[in-house]
């Protein structure tokens, strides 16, 4: 092993501090969610219990946590699928410049940088002025896409910037139609990145607050419900929910990682080099 420079140890120290900073609140939440039955939202702990987790599964005084969780989950899946499909199509199309592609590109950037509250306000106004009813699966869905699509597209741009075009040329030489080329060559090669896009699509949606605020309609999504709870709930059940949603997010990441691993392993078994086409 090469010897470590002194800066390594300094930076390791910095990195550990950074992790502490990052994890501080998460750990605080984690600890406080095991607060005893009579404990409050702040320290000190009054005993240790699973009471608040149990409480989470019983009916709350207000709101509907599990309903909102279900909606957020469904919405997350909707957004995820749409983001993947639209981003791939967009990424493919954007490889060539054509009239209008520049404008669309700047729209994507605008969509990425526009303050989220504007989307919320604008979509809300648009629906109310045209007499449509806002609903999480229509206006909320669209509003979230304005945030997840630019993300997905940026990832796809990065992927296609590094995509070796000779694979496609080879496929075409071998008589593949454009669709076959995409289906049998391009998609398998970019599959690992698609898992990334899907993960982003899901989690960005699952955590989105501002864009859903005025566009979700009668039924809350989970972040809205949590926000609502911060206005009404004064018990550690809020932290139990926080801990549980973190665990849930971790499970989701785990599932995606496992998917990536499995697909890699299957490839390795099949002995192909797919996925290596990205240089």
């Amino acid at each position, binding site marked *: 092993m090469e010897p*470590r420079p002194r800066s*390594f140890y300094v*930076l390791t120290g*910095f*990195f550990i501090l950074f992790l502490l*900073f*990052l*994890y501080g*609140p*998460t750990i*605080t939440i984690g600890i*406080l969610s095991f607060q005893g039955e009579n404990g409050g939202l*702040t*320290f000190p702990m009054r005993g240790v219990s699973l009471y608040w987790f149990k409480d989470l599964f019983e009916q709350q005084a207000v709101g509907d946590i599990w309903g909102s969780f279900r909606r957020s989950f469904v919405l997350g899946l909707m957004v995820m699928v749409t983001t993947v*499909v639209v981003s791939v*199509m*967009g990424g493919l*199309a*954007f490889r060539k410049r054509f009239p*209008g592609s520049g404008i*669309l*590109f700047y*729209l994507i*950037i*605008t*969509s*990425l*940088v*526009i*303050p989220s*509250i*504007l*989307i919320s*306000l*604008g979509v809300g*106004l*648009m629906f109310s002025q045209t007499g449509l009813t806002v609903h999480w699966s229509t206006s909320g869905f669209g509003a979230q*896409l*304005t945030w997840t699509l630019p993300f997905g*597209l*940026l990832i796809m*741009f*990065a992927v296609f*910037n590094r995509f070796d075009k000779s694979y496609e040329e080879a496929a*075409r030489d071998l008589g593949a139609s454009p669709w076959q080329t995409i289906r049998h060559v391009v998609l398998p090669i970019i599959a690992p990145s698609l898992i990334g896009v899907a993960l982003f699509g899901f989690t960005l949606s699952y*955590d989105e607050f*501002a864009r859903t605020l005025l566009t979700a309609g009668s039924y809350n999504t*989970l*972040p809205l419900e*949590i*926000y609502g709870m*911060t206005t009404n709930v004064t018990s550690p059940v*809020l*932290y139990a*929910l*926080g801990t549980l*949603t*973190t665990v849930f997010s971790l499970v*989701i*990441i785990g599932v995606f990682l496992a998917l990536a691993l499995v697909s890699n392993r299957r490839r390795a078994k099949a002995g192909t080099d797919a996925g290596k086409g990205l240089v």
Partner: protein
Amino acid sequence: MPPEGARPSLPLLTGSPMNKLRENNALKGWMMLSPLALVLLAFLVTPIIMITVVSFWRATEFSIIPAFVWENYDFLFGSPVTYTVFFNTFKYALITWAATFVIGFTVAYYLAFHIRTQTWQIALFLLCTIPFWTSNIIRMISWIPFLGRNGIANSALISWGVIDEPVEWLLFSDFAVILAFVHLYTLFMVVPIFNTMMRIDRSLIEAARDAGANGIQILWNVILPLTKPGIMIGTIFVVTLVMGDFITVRFMSGSQSANVGRLISNDIALLQYPSASATAIVLLLTVLIVIGILLRFVDIRKEL
């Protein structure tokens, strides 16, 4: 169609067939992009137009009335508070940017250049991202028991004898706001910088060392300039997220400070949509100008 038809370099394909091909490209491109274009049209362009239109409307307590008046803008530009609030917005953006940049760059640098195996790089990187999967709101409010007058930080400092009286400015202050921003958004800086750093050819570092550059010189003359695209992308994320925020400032300042986002959200809460729209339009223009300036330094499409 013979396969050669796809090769525009053939001398046969000049003139009109070439044009046809180009048209075809545009058509195909637009067909592939139509879902994207539709979403952006329906949920980005139309809402912006809507906001622009409404910003000229009049409002009552409970409803908005189509009109064409400048009173929302007059009020906005006429109030000294607007300038304070815009100043605050820039202040938060700038300080948060500086902090996230220093932290993000250092962390990315450490991961990219001091961690040797890719497995460890990925593992440590994932470790950084885990806290970002907790709900933002919960992450934010969990600072409160930490920073409060009788919070963990103050109790610890007092028990160590560093201070005698609880430090008040830890919570409900600009410090708390920026701390929360940095906490929420540093990852947006780490990811793109790490990504660009990972693509720096290691032989460039060796070449610099060969040329006699020491660690700091390499950092300043090679790594920093080569990381610029990542820094720019991270900057765009952090600056726009901070400038558009309205929740963090409210929670962490104890409602004592405001940025433009809060001005808008307060107006929305009070059903003053035209006034909110006017402020939103001004905010949007401000953000777009800032981003426009940043984009002059980096070709996002090329650098991804």
